[in-house]
């Protein structure tokens, strides 16, 4: 999901696509499951496809992952 072939950059990835709103809605769970080692590419194909095809959402996903790795679940 980090390396993009030319075709993906230009034409996006084939298959179901959650769109920006749909992907952002599922991204918290997607990120937690990805960090837990689950195969999110299969479990959330529409989100994974979107992240490959949408540069803004992909960058936000990496930011969310990094926050989770750094701060964990937070505390209160």
């Amino acid at each position, binding site marked *: 999901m980090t390396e993009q*072939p*030319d*075709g993906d*950059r*230009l*034409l*996006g990835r*084939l*298959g*179901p*696509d*959650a*769109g*920006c*709103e*749909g992907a*952002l*809605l*599922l*991204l*918290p*769970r997607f*990120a*937690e499951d990805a960090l837990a080692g689950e195969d999110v590419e299969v479990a959330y194909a*529409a989100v994974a496809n979107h992240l490959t*095809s*949408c*540069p*803004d*959402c992909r*960058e*936000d996903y990496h*930011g*969310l992952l*990094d*926050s*989770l790795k*750094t*701060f964990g*679940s*937070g*505390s*209160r």
Partner: protein
Amino acid sequence: MECAVSATPLSVTQASLLDPMSRGWLDALGTEGPAREAALSELHALLLRAARHEARRRSPSLPETVVADLEDLTLQAADDALLAITAKLGQFRGDSRFTTWAYMFVVVEVSAKLRRRAWRGQDLNLDAEEWERVPDSRAGPGHRAESLELLATLKTAVASELTERQREVFVSVALNEVPLDVLAERMQTTRGAIYKVLHDARKKLRAHLAERGMGFSQEEDA
């Protein structure tokens, strides 16, 4: 595009499955008085910490003028994220931890602010097609010729197959690497709406290539 998600409120069953920390956040934010004020203050601090972290992560790729404004931008992002979270608290479905859900709001806010600030004042030059910036990641003369043929066909299709708006969006995002958030601001719409135009443009281009046996098949989704 397929989108099988909805923002349904937390059901009683879902609420009972929440982890204790998320339950604590929801209870505190859903109450009135000092407990809520304390939770809001605590959440703002958490959001500001995450906003600063995200801004630092991106700072190597930002112009110096933007880096100089990071403290203001991150504070604005934390403020806006807190407002969005409190407004949408009823939409938290418990699919993730509450803090993960909250981090997403602030990451999206920081991202949009940094992108827009970095591109402020820049001409998007919607008609200029930067085909030479498309990297050729495949090695070998055979693949290079194939890439050149593909790009030439794509270039023709962009001119002949797309509507004016589809062409502007495709050229800006896919070729010139303008962030969707920036284009959305200039076109006074949302990231999602810009992405939909891009998606439809890509679909047309794939179909055009497939008709010429260029190796891309047409998407099946509507």
